[in-house]
């Protein structure tokens, strides 16, 4: 459903390509994980797929549901059903959680807001009237972001490290939740993460390294490649991720 081909991205104000050669594919209703070390270009890739102004590719193409979207604006892509949850979501002044979630919904129905909040385990009575500003904790803000994305019922959710900044106990639950969500709203997920536990729900994965996609395929194989390149094989042997997932 999403095909990224030979993408080269020089973010606005940067002289060199941060992503120099990226190709991968996300199939319908699958969870596709993007793995790669800090600074390898994962977020940049996510912004470019979303169509953010500062991240127009200088070459390559992005196809979504058989349609070339390389030159579409953010709004146009969002209307086609693509959305993004930021790694560090921005804070707004004077916008309530409820209004924020409703902004992306077509029917703006109150009970759908409650439902989205309950999916991310936020008490809607407590949070609906709060502002999406600095008063939310880091983890709360990320949950609100996830709720807003889910409420849109998108066809493709790009989630940039939704697991960072959440308390440890909820990792597993989060992946389970993503699994439930994709089944409930029938959406595909492009999941950027560092955590091997995501393998529990991942259908496939791509490894990105210094701006280049190295390998796409089944999650354990890609994870193994990541560990090899990161020279973490010793660690990996102790935790046999190849066998695990």
């Amino acid at each position, binding site marked *: 459903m999403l095909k990224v081909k030979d993408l080269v991205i020089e973010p606005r104000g940067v002289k060199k390509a941060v992503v120099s050669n990226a190709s991968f594919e996300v199939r319908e209703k699958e969870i596709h994980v993007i793995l790669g070390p800090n600074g390898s270009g994962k977020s940049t890739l996510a912004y470019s797929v979303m169509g953010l102004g500062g991240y127009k590719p200088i070459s390559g193409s992005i196809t979504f549901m058989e349609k070339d979207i390389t030159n579409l604006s953010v709004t146009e892509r969002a209307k086609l059903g693509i959305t*993004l949850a930021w790694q560090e979501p*921005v804070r707004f002044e004077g916008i309530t959680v409820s209004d924020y979630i409703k*902004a992306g919904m077509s029917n703006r129905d109150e009970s759908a807001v409650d439902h989205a909040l309950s999916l991310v385990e936020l008490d809607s009575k407590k949070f609906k009237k709060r502002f999406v500003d600095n008063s939310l904790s880091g983890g709360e803000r990320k949950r609100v972001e996830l709720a807003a994305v889910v409420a849109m019922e998108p066809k493709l959710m790009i989630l940039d490290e939704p697991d960072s900044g959440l308390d440890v106990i909820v990792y597993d639950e989060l992946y389970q939740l993503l699994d439930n969500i994709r089944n409930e709203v029938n959406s595909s997920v492009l999941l950027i993460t560092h955590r091997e536990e995501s393998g529990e729900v991942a259908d496939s994965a791509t490894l990105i390294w210094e701006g280049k996609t190295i390998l796409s395929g089944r999650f354990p194989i890609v994870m193994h490649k990541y560990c090899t390149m990161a020279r973490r094989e010793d660690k990996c042997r102790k935790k046999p991720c190849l066998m695990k997932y």
Partner: protein
Amino acid sequence: MQEKTLPHEILESAEKVGFDIDPMVAPDAPKLLLNFNKVVAVKDAPGLILKSKEIDDGIVADIIVTKGVKIKYPLHLCFGMVAQTGIQEIVARFIIEDGAEVLMLAHCSFPNACDLVHKMEAKIAVGKGAKFLYEERHYHGENSGASVYPTFEADIGEGSYFKTVFSLVQGTVGKVNINANIYAQKDAKIEMITKAYGKSDKDKVMIRDAVFLEGNNSRGTIRMRAAARGGGEVFMEGITEGNAPGATGHVDCKEIIQGFGSTARATPLVRVTDEMARITHEAAVGRVNQKELDTLMARGLTEEEAVDMIVKGML
């Protein structure tokens, strides 16, 4: 006491700026409502004294909350004028005695203004251990035809809390020039919030909010928020002086420019004369934050809708 009715246009504009009018017109609700130089409704309450005198082009009023009295319901004030042209002048004294508490909701409405001038001179005296919340919302119609010049002088006594919210975000502005000086005594706490939205090249806003922290451990925050579009001009100056040990203050100005030709200027000005005082400030002027825009557009809003939502939130 003369009971005339408030022109419906004034009630409509009260609703426009988001005030609930039912409690305002309720017969028992404390109120002082004017149209030009006529008092159209007045209702006091135990411990709340409302005295007014009609003069040629306005009124002179004393609003007093007596010692230790806590006024349970908000006092509604309306300084309005339905005429298209003319000059209205209000001289008002607000006296909040020791230990008194009151919330005032003021509504300044000039719905038909074409060439209209409103001047207001307010003197505010708050005693010790009192609490005074004052919210003033303006509506100047759709013709940019009002010129509004209020001045406020306030002295806030020991351990008292004073909060003011001024907003002019619905309809047009015309010309607005506000000048406020607030003096905080020992342990007093001041909070000033000012919001304005200039929408065309006929809209010019100039607001100067100043807090003088004169007493030990007095505290003050000034928050100014503005947006300008279509050639509008918004200038805001937030001043805080720390002149006593332990005085702490913060000035925070944020202005958003939409489109071409508009001007916004935010000047936080801090002055400290006591080495044990501390004042901080921040200011941001310019276009809407890109990440905020991107985030809302990724939910399917157009750029215009996103800017609108961000500006509305801020104001």
